[in-house]
């Protein structure tokens, strides 16, 4: 049966993120109402995703390597390369423990949390930053998907019985090096004994419009780029659809790993690494 492999320290899962760092990411995000660039939104999303993944793998006073994580940047003088900086610069996949221990910096931020008595209390929390906003050059998405295939191919050859890698592409969708669909199909033709690679797309658009999460159909998507990214996105597994529903996300049968102008930080919860309390927030 597909997508049933246990994820454990002995059989880790793999997340590979592709970050669009092209010049067009300087443009306003979501109609420009929040005064934010698409690149700012992308940096927020990738930092939150890695943050959540680190917290998920944290266990008592340490962190378990349930996942290995890679981040490829594309843009920046039209090249595709590992995007980590600092002690892990140049590496394409690292265990989550190394990533968690090597942010660029850790900021103190104030957030409001439940005080247990029906009120809110301000709490200072650590907010690690691995990636700052970047934008330059073209959008070699085809090249990024091709490089992702190389990284994934190596991973699955070493983890043939493991859960297939999940590739998450965060972009404004405007490839400048050709039609990305064939490269996406080539990437998704790879996999382990447990199933094909899953490709999810997070579309950050300058177009204003209601956020879309895990759509099953392309109806209502605002432009051709969104529809193209939807077509490139893998269907969620039944477990993922069930988990998404538990988390209050609108996932119906046939839902794809596609998000438009939203911060899908809960996607990290879509894989099973053991009993997860329903009341854990």
């Amino acid at each position: 049966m597909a997508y049933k492999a246990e994820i454990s320290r002995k059989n880790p899962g793999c997340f590979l993120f592709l970050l669009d760092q092209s010049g067009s990411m300087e443009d306003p995000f979501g109609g420009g109402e929040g005064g934010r660039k698409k690149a700012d939104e992308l940096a927020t999303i990738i930092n939150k995703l890695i943050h959540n993944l680190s917290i998920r793998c944290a266990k008592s006073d340490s962190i378990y390597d349930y996942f290995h994580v890679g981040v490829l940047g594309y843009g920046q003088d039209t090249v595709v390369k590992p995007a980590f900086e600092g002690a892990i610069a140049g590496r394409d996949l690292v265990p989550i423990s190394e990533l968690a221990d090597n942010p660029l910096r850790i900021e103190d931020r104030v957030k409001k949390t439940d005080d247990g008595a029906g009120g809110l209390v301000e709490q200072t929390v650590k907010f690690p930053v691995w990636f700052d906003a970047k934008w330059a050059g073209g959008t070699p998405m085809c090249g990024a998907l091709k490089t992702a295939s190389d990284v994934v191919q190596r991973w699955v050859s070493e983890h043939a019985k493991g859960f297939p890698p999940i590739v998450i592409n965060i972009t404004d969708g405007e490839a400048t090096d050709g039609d990305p669909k064939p490269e996406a199909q080539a990437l998704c033709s790879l996999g382990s004994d447990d199933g094909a690679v899953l490709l999810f797309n997070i579309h950050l658009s300058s177009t204003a419009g209601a956020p879309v999460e895990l759509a099953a159909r392309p109806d209502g998507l605002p432009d051709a780029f969104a529809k193209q990214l939807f077509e490139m996105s893998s269907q969620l597994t039944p477990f993922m659809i069930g988990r998404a529903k538990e988390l209050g996300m609108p996932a119906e049968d046939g839902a794809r790993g596609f998000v438009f102008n939203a911060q899908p930080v809960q996607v990290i919860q879509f894989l099973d690494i053991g009993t997860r309390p329903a009341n854990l927030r």
Partner: protein
Amino acid sequence: MSSGFPFAIEAFCCPKAGNRPEEYEDAWAFRTDGAAGSARVAVADGATESSFSKLWAILLVESWVRGRAGGPEALSRLEGARRLWRRKVGGRKLPWYAAEKASRGAHAAFVGLALDPAGRRWSAAAVGDCCLFELHGVGPGLRLARAFPLTRSEEFGSSPFLVGSIARGGDDPSPHLRLAEGSLPHHGTLLFASDALSAWLLAREERGEPAWEAASRLGVADAIDFEALVTRAREEGARNDDMTLLRLTSLPD
């Protein structure tokens, strides 16, 4: 282990395959009172996805067996256990991710039972998917009289509501507390099991395959027998998880 009363209590445990014994996160406890002839037993299952959940599971079962409350008051000692958890976890110097995870609290499933041997009456309380099975008969004639709080294998999921070590809004376990009462016949056995073992036992029962004798005194007499049972369960598709069996067997008068 025998209590010296007309029942015996035995416990067996095994960590998740691939984990070290010290990573076992279930907990069990029992306490008998010779003068009163009563007994209290409990099994808890600390959640994989929370931190310091082994400590929390231990505090929950110890709190139950050292208390007297049952029925709707079953959670009356919860705040004391929470205070202890906070005291033991607080003040540690932790990396940022461990500190944030700990701030979300630990979680555990729990089932506890109080037995009054005078009338052979028992009362049980549970939150989550640790289960109690009441068996009647002996040997191959052993049959399931009652399963509590879950009764079907498909009810076991990977996201049950669990008892949290930190009180916060929307996290009150009281609405999720399940209660049951019964009486133990002369040829009666009470099994307490964490979720993976419970689900496997119920699945066998549903398929009409012998399940209960394998977990009774005939099937599991020592730790080696229990390891063999766990291996068999996992080969038959049981979830790879910590497994715990606590057994209270009524002995001949």
